[in-house]
C-alpha cells in the first residue's frame, strides 16, 4: 500500500465519519422529539410513520438522485448526502422512540399520574428512562445502516469512503474497493458494539 493511499484512507474515513455523525445528530434531533409527540397525538401516528416508512422503501441510489434537482436541500455535495441519510435514519429512531414509550407498563404510567406527576415529570422521570434501551437500540440500527448507506453519497459528490468504492468499480480495482469497503465495515462493527455497550450501561432496569 502506498503512503498516499494510506493517507487517502484516513481522510476519507474521517469524511465518512463526519457524514454519519452529522446525519445521526440531525435525525435524532428530529425523530426523538417527533416520536415523543406521536405518543401524545396518536392520530398523527399513521401519517408520520407512513412517511418515514415510504422514505425507507425508496432505493438509496435513487433517493440521492431525486434530491439533486431540489432547491436548498439538493444539488451536488455533502448537504444533499446528509439530507438523504437523515431521511433514512428517521424511521428506526422514530419507531423505537414510539414503541419504547408506549411499552411502558400501563400500571406504572397510571400510578405516576395518580401520584400527582405532571405530564412533563411523567415523560422525563418515568417514560424516557424506561424507554432508554429501546430508543438506543433504534439509534444503533440507524447508525449502522447510515454507515453503509453513506458509501453511496460519493455518487453525488458527498465524499466519504464511497469515493474508493465508485473509483474501484469504474477501474475494476479490487484494492480500491477494499480500501473503501473494509474501513466502512469496521466502522459499522465498532458503532454496533460501542452503542450496544452504551445501551447496557444506560439501561435503568
Amino acid at each position: 500500500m502506498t503512503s498516499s493511499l494510506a493517507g487517502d484512507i484516513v481522510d476519507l474515513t474521517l469524511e465518512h465519519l463526519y457524514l454519519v455523525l452529522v446525519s445521526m445528530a440531525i435525525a435524532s434531533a428530529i425523530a426523538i422529539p417527533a416520536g415523543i409527540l406521536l405518543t401524545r397525538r396518536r392520530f398523527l401516528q399513521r401519517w408520520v410513520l407512513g412517511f418515514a416508512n415510504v422514505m425507507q422503501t425508496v432505493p438509496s441510489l435513487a433517493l440521492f438522485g431525486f434530491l439533486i434537482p431540489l432547491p436548498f436541500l439538493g444539488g451536488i455535495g455533502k448537504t444533499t448526502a446528509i439530507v438523504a441519510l437523515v431521511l433514512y435514519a428517521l424511521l428506526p429512531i422514530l419507531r423505537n422512540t414510539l414503541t419504547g414509550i408506549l411499552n411502558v407498563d400501563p400500571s406504572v404510567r397510571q400510578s405516576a399520574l395518580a401520584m400527582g406527576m405532571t405530564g412533563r415529570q411523567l415523560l422525563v422521570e418515568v417514560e424516557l428512562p424506561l424507554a432508554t434501551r429501546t430508543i438506543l437500540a433504534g439509534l444503533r440500527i440507524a447508525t449502522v445502516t447510515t454507515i453503509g448507506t453513506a458509501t453511496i453519497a460519493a455518487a453525488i459528490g458527498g465524499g466519504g469512503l464511497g469515493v474508493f468504492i465508485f473509483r474501484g468499480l469504474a477501474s475494476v480495482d479490487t484494492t480500491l474497493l477494499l480500501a473503501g469497503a473494509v474501513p466502512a465495515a469496521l466502522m459499522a462493527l465498532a458503532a454496533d458494539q460501542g452503542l450496544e455497550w452504551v445501551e447496557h450501561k444506560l439501561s435503568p432496569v
Partner: protein
Amino acid sequence: MSPFVSFQRVSARLGQKDILHGLHFDIQAGEAVALLGRSGSGKTTALKMVNGLLLPSSGTVVIEGTPTTEWDLIRLRRRTGYVIQEAGLFPHFTVAANVGLVPRLEGWTREAIDTRVRELLTQLGLPPAQFAGRYPRELSGGQRQRVGVARALAADPPLLLMDEPFGALDPVTRVEIQRQFLELRRRLNKTVLLVTHDVREALLLATRIGVLHNGRLVFLGERAEFLNAQDQEVRAFHTCLDDTTMGIAG
C-alpha cells in the same frame, strides 16, 4: 359535618358503553368504605373518579366540598394515596425513591424525605437498612405491595384509594398484609375507599360495604346489614362466604 367524598348522581360513559349509572353516596372522614363487585361492575371506574383520573360524564364527585372538575388535579392527587394491584412501582426507582416520590414532588427537604421513608418502611415491616436500596424486581409480591402502601401513605394524605390492593398475593401473605393494614388504618385514622371482588377483604377492612352491579350501587350499609341484606347480588356474595365455610365443615 360535610362528607369527605360525595358521589352525586354520577354516571360514566366510555365510548358507547355506560359504566356507571347515577352513583349516589357519601363517605365521611375516617370511614373505610369498600365497593364490592364482580369484574366489569364499574368499581375501578368509580375509584378513578375520586382522584380525577376519570371525570364523570354526568353528575359530580365532590371532594372536601369541591367538585373534582374544579380541583387542581395535581394537588388533589398528591393529597390522595393510591394503591393498585401489583403496586405499580417504578421499576427504575429504588424502594426509597418509590416511597419518597410524592414528598419529593411536594418539595420536601432530603432529610425530611429520608426520615419519612425510614419511618414508613419500619412501620410496614421492611427494615430500611435491608430494603431502602433495593429495586422492585428484588422484592417478593408481598414486599412490593407493602412498598405500594408505604408510597401511598408517604405525604400523609387524608384519603386513601385502593384498587384490589392485595389481590395478586398468595392467601397467607394477603391475610398478613390485610391485618397489618387494618392496624395501620386504626392508628392513622385515614379515610379509605377500597374496591375489591373479595367479600372477605371487604368485611375485614371496611366499616361500610357498597355493592356495585352493572354500574349501579345496589346496596350500601354496615357489615351486619350487609350480612342480612336480601338483594340478589349481595346474596351472590354471601354464597362465596357460605361455600368456603361449608368446605371447611365438610
